[in-house]
């Protein structure tokens, strides 16, 4: 996605102000369960991690995947099944979910990176739909009902995840670790190469980088982290259903990222928070969520391509419009 909006994406230097904001944000998240319903917060955190993982691919590698639901929902199924049917402890279940999502990412990515741009999006969509049909027919997903009543269990045999505050802080820890991992990846030499692929794939090739391998690596990492979000979600909500693997879910994570700001670190988190809050609000009214989602999509694409955080960056941090990385 070599485009103005993305090129304006945030630079590598992080000012002191930004660090203070991050610290404040973390403090707010630590205090939040005392003021807001924890289940709702955990849903936000899971989707925020999902969106960040997705953004690693779209924002920093320039690949638009339309199939990330397969990794999110697939991992949720693997985790739920291993905990409920095999009696695995939560940490092993999460590990299996992440590994499964990474493997799925390897397979889907292997095919998808053979084409670029719009074809890449269509191929990921088609292959994730194939996985969806697999989940519809496979026995272990328990069909239309999904895997219900997954026990939360004890993390490392010690922490009782049935206690709301316990599970909240575990989810928060996973979220922070996941986002930190993404931040490290993005700002590593590896991440720089990914960005160079985003900006100019041919030039990256001519500099001697095997672009295909880097793309596949980014795809697998993004899938694994999306899987981490899905696994944790399965434990929090104690179920895994077809909703998590359906194409609408892939659309949702795109929306979160687009709304918050593609190629910004914080954008997907903000976007996920807003979308989840909006869904919660609309759940009690009779206004259909799909219409709201679609409208936000259209408005974002037409007039708001930088997203909320991208817009703030452009105005506050680079006001003169001289926003070169």
């Amino acid at each position, binding site marked *: 996605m070599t485009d103005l909006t993305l090129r304006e994406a945030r630079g590598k230097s992080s000012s002191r102000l930004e660090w203070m904001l991050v610290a404040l944000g973390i403090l707010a998240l630590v205090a939040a369960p005392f003021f807001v319903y924890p289940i709702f917060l955990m849903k936000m955190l899971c989707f925020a991690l999902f969106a960040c993982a997705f953004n690693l691919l779209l924002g920093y590698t320039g690949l638009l995947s339309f199939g990330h639901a397969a990794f999110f929902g697939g991992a949720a199924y693997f985790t739920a099944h291993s905990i409920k049917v095999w009696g695995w402890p939560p940490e092993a279940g999460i590990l299996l979910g992440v590994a499964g999502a990474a493997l799925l990412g390897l397979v889907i990515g292997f095919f998808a990176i053979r084409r670029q741009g719009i074809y890449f999006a269509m191929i990921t969509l088609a292959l994730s739909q194939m996985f969806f049909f697999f989940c519809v027919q496979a026995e272990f997903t328990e069909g239309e009902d999904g895997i219900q009543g997954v026990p939360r269990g004890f993390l490392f045999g010690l922490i009782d995840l049935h206690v709301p505050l316990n599970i909240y802080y575990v989810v928060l820890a996973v979220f922070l670790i996941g986002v930190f991992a993404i931040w490290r990846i993005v700002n590593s030499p590896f991440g720089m190469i990914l960005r160079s692929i985003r900006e100019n794939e041919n030039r990256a090739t001519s500099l001697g980088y095997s672009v295909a391998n880097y793309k596949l690596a980014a795809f697998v990492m993004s899938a694994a982290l999306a899987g981490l979000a899905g696994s944790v979600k399965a434990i929090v909500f104690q179920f895994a259903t077809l909703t998590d693997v359906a194409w609408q879910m892939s659309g949702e994570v*795109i929306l979160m990222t687009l709304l918050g700001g593609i190629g910004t670190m914080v954008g997907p988190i903000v976007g996920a928070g807003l979308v989840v809050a909006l869904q919660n609000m609309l759940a009690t009214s009779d206004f259909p969520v799909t219409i709201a989602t679609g409208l936000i999509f259209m408005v974002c694409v037409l007039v708001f391509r930088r997203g909320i955080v991208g817009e703030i960056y452009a105005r506050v941090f680079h006001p003169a419009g001289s926003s070169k990385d």
Partner: protein
Amino acid sequence: MIFGIPIQAFLGQLLVGLINGSFYALLSLGLAIIFGLLRVINFAHGAQYMLGAFAGYLLLAHLGIGYWPALILAPLIVGVTGIIIERLALSRLYDIDPLYGLLFTFGLALVLEGVFRYYFGVSGNPYPVPPLLAGGTNLGFMFLPIYRGWVVVASLVICIGVWLAIEKTKFGSYLRAATENPSLVQAFGVNVPLLLTLTYGLGAALAGLAGILAAPVYQVSPLMGSNLIIVVFAVVVVGGMGSILGAIVTGYMLGLAEGLTKVFYPEASNIVIFVIMAIVLLVRPAGLFGKDA
């Protein structure tokens, strides 16, 4: 008997495959025309197909307008809405990354689907087969419902007609030229923005036409387009969007492949097109008829 399968069952599934293939061909044709000129993947194509079916259904239910006028009116309605959307929104997205066009039309598809789901629920509404095409005929080796035969013939005629129009007419030559090099064509005094608008309208109208053709075969339901469009995307990847004829041929071929799979290994019939797509990506990443690398 063929490979232990009764010949009636075999031909029956082949016919189902041919009918599905007719819709794949019509829809991927529209997608290919739009993509060729606008460089936009029209995610709303499935929703426009649904809109065509609903236009027919509503015309009949509320105005008593039957199938034959609807066959003209429904595509016209969908085409005009397409033109409005192109003028108001899509035309602002041509200068930026094509992925934004995909995202915009995705949002549009969600809105259209959401609106119809809100008013009509998710259950399907039956649309009667027009009396002229009701009933069936015994071909000796199988029973052929006339309407299904009509769908296959009509879609073939439409596909070939559109292909000829693009290859042989003046408008078609402008279209092909503008696909190759829009700024040069503009320099020759052709109104390219108008051409883009009409092309999107034409593509949308084709989706609407497929929708009204499909109405008596499948039920008219708000969700009829969204699942189909993903399969059509796979068809488009297999064919490669470089050629109009390629899109048509691939559509029929994959429909038949799907029908055959239903005969021999029904469990895989949902995914066979995706599997073929994966194989084609391995062997010929540009697609069967694709030109681009």
